C-alpha cells in the first residue's frame, strides 16, 4: 500500500496495529514517517527533549524481522510512542526538564518503560514537560517549552506538555504522562486528545521521578479511547517494586468498550463544576452541557449529585503535593537551589514552609472527600464534568501562580485515587479544545473507558486534526 507520511502519522494505534499485523505496513516505514515528521515540525512545537532516531530505527527493523518470522507480540508491536521525560529509560538521558537532572542517565528502565518495550512498541524519544511535573511552563527551567498544536501562542497544558503536543500533532502515536493534580487530563483537554489517569495503584510508579508519592499517577495519552485502552493494557498490573501497586486483577480493557451505555446513571456535581465562580469559562460549560445531552440521547440518565467537600479539595491538594515535593527535593533545594527554575524553586520552598498541621488537616480532608465520592458512586455509575475550568491560556498570560489560582477540576480525583479520563468534546469559538472528564469507581476503568468510547464514537471530534 502507498500512504503519505501525513496519512501514516494520522493513523490510530488500532488502525496501524491491524495494518502491521497483516504485514500491509512495515514498522520501519511507519517509524521513518514519524521521525521525518518530528524533524519537520518539532522546531515549532518543541514537544521533544530527546529524539532517538538511530535507536528507533533499529528497534523498528528488529520488530519487522520478528513479524516476518511470525512472532507478533500484540497491538503495540511496531507502534512508535514517546515518553514524558521523567520515565526512566536505561542508558537514555532522563531530565524531568530540570537542570538538576540535566545529565542524568538511568541504569534501569521504569517498570512502565520496560512493559511498553516488551509489548513491542518503538520509543521515538523523550518528551518535554513542566519542570519536575509541577504545573506551569517556566522559561527559566533551561528546557524547551512545548506549544499547543491548535494555537502555537497557547500552552498545551501540563505538566505532560510534550505528551499532549506530540500526540495531537502526530509526532507519536501514544505517550505516557504522569499526573499529580491533572497533568494527564489537562494537556489532553487542551490538545483535544484522550488522557487517562488510572486508579491509584493500577499502574506502577517505579522508575518515574516523583512529585508527590501519594498523589502521583501514571497513564496513557492517545488520539482515541480505543488506543488508551490498548496502552493501559500493556502497562497495568502489579509491580513488586512499587509499594503502592495493587494486586487487583487486570481485565481486558478493550473487551467491553463497545457495549452501549443505555441505563447507566451519570452524576453531575453542578454545585462545584458549574458554580458562578467568575474564573470558570461559560463557553466551556456550554460545550460540556452539549456533551451531556449527547450522553443522555445515547440512553444514559443524567442526574445532579452533591459532593460537599469538592470545594475544599483545591486547598488540600497543594498542601499534600508541595509538602511531599519538598521532602523529596529538600537536599538539592539547600545545596544547589540555582539549578531549579524560578517557578519550581519558589513553590517547592513554599512546601517546606507549610506545617505538619497543614499536611495532616489536608490528609484528613482527603479522607472525607474519598468517602463522599464513594457514597455518590453507590448511586451513580460515573461522575462527569468539564476537565478544565477554562481553555488553554496564551503563554503571555501565564505566571508562577496561574495554575494555583485556577479552580482545579482534576485534582479532586488525584486525592481520591479514582480513575478519570478526559475525552475531547468540542472547541471554543476561538478554536481551542474543550475536554469532558469522566470519573468512576476504583478499578472500574472498563466502565470509564466505555462511556468515553461511546461518546467519542458518536461525537467524532477525533476526526478534526490541528493544522501545524
Amino acid at each position, binding site marked *: 500500500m502507498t500512504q503519505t507520511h501525513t496519512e501514516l502519522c494520522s493513523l490510530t494505534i488500532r488502525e496501524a496495529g491491524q495494518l502491521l499485523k497483516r504485514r500491509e505496513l512495515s514498522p520501519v516505514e511507519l517509524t521513518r514517517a514519524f521521525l521525518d515528521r518530528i524533524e519537520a515540525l518539532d522546531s515549532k512545537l518543541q514537544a521533544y527533549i530527546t529524539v532517538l532516531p538511530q535507536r528507533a530505527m533499529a528497534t523498528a527493523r528488529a520488530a519487522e524481522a520478528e513479524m516476518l518470522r511470525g512472532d507478533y507480540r500484540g497491538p503495540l508491536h511496531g507502534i512508535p510512542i514517546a515518553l514524558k521525560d521523567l520515565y526512566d529509560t536505561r542508558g537514555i538521558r532522563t531530565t524531568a526538564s530540570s537542570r538538576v537532572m540535566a545529565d542524568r542517565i538511568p541504569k534501569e528502565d521504569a517498570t512502565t518503560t520496560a512493559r511498553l518495550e516488551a509489548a513491542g512498541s518503538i520509543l521515538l524519544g523523550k518528551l518535554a514537560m513542566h519542570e519536575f511535573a509541577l504545573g506551569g511552563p517556566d522559561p527559566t527551567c533551561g528546557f524547551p517549552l512545548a506549544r499547543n498544536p491548535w494555537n502555537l501562542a497557547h500552552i498545551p497544558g501540563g505538566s505532560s506538555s510534550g505528551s499532549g503536543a506530540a500526540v495531537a500533532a502526530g509526532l507519536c502515536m501514544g505517550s505516557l504522562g504522569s499526573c499529580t493534580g491533572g497533568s494527564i487530563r489537562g494537556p489532553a483537554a487542551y490538545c483535544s486528545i484522550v488522557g487517562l489517569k488510572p486508579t491509584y*495503584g493500577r499502574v506502577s510508579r517505579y522508575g518515574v521521578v516523583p512529585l508527590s508519592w501519594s498523589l502521583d499517577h501514571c497513564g496513557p495519552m492517545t488520539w482515541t479511547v480505543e488506543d488508551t485502552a490498548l496502552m493501559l493494557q500493556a502497562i497495568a498490573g502489579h509491580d513488586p517494586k512499587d509499594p503502592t501497586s495493587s494486586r487487583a486483577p487486570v481485565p481486558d480493557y478493550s473487551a467491553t468498550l463497545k457495549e452501549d451505555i443505555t441505563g447507566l446513571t451519570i452524576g453531575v456535581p453542578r454545585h462545584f463544576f458549574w458554580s458562578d465562580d467568575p474564573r470558570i469559562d461559560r463557553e466551556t460549560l456550554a460545550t460540556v452541557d452539549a456533551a451531556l445531552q449527547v450522553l443522555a440521547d445515547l440512553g444514559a440518565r443524567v442526574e445532579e449529585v452533591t459532593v460537599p467537600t469538592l470545594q475544599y479539595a483545591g486547598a488540600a491538594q497543594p498542601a499534600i503535593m508541595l509538602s511531599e515535593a*519538598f521532602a523529596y527535593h529538600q537536599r538539592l533545594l539547600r545545596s544547589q537551589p540555582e539549578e531549579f527554575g524560578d517557578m519550581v524553586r519558589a513553590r517547592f520552598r513554599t512546601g517546606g514552609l507549610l506545617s505538619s498541621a497543614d499536611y495532616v*488537616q489536608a490528609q484528613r480532608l482527603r479522607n472525607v472527600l474519598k468517602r463522599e465520592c464513594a457514597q455518590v458512586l453507590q448511586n451513580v455509575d460515573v461522575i462527569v464534568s468539564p476537565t478544565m475550568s477554562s481553555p488553554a491560556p496564551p503563554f503571555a498570560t501565564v505566571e508562577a501562580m496561574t495554575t*494555583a489560582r485556577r479552580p482545579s477540576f482534576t485534582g479532586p480525583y488525584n486525592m481520591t485515587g479514582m480513575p478519570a479520563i478526559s475525552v475531547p468534546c468540542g472547541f471554543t469559538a476561538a478554536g481551542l479544545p474543550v475536554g469532558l472528564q469522566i470519573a468512576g469507581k476504583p478499578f472500574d476503568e472498563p466502565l470509564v473507558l466505555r462511556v468515553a468510547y461511546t461518546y467519542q464514537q458518536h461525537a467524532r471530534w477525533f476526526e478534526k486534526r490541528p493544522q501545524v
Partner: protein
Amino acid sequence: MADAEGITLDDMRVLAERVGLCLTPAELEHLKPMFDFYAEQMRVLHDLDLAAEDLAVAFSPNWDLQG
C-alpha cells in the same frame, strides 16, 4: 504569625531556617506572596470541623467502596 498583611519576613525566615533553607531577604520577599496565598488556603482548611476524621496517611490501592 500571619495577620491581614500576611506573614512577616522575620517569621518566614524562622520557618525557612527550621527546614534548612537559608534565604536572603530578597528571596523571602519574593516568596512571601506565594506563602500568603497558600496560608490563606490553609486557614480555610483549619476552620473546617473534621471531628475525629482519620488521617489518610497511607492510601489503599484496594480502596473499599463500602468503607
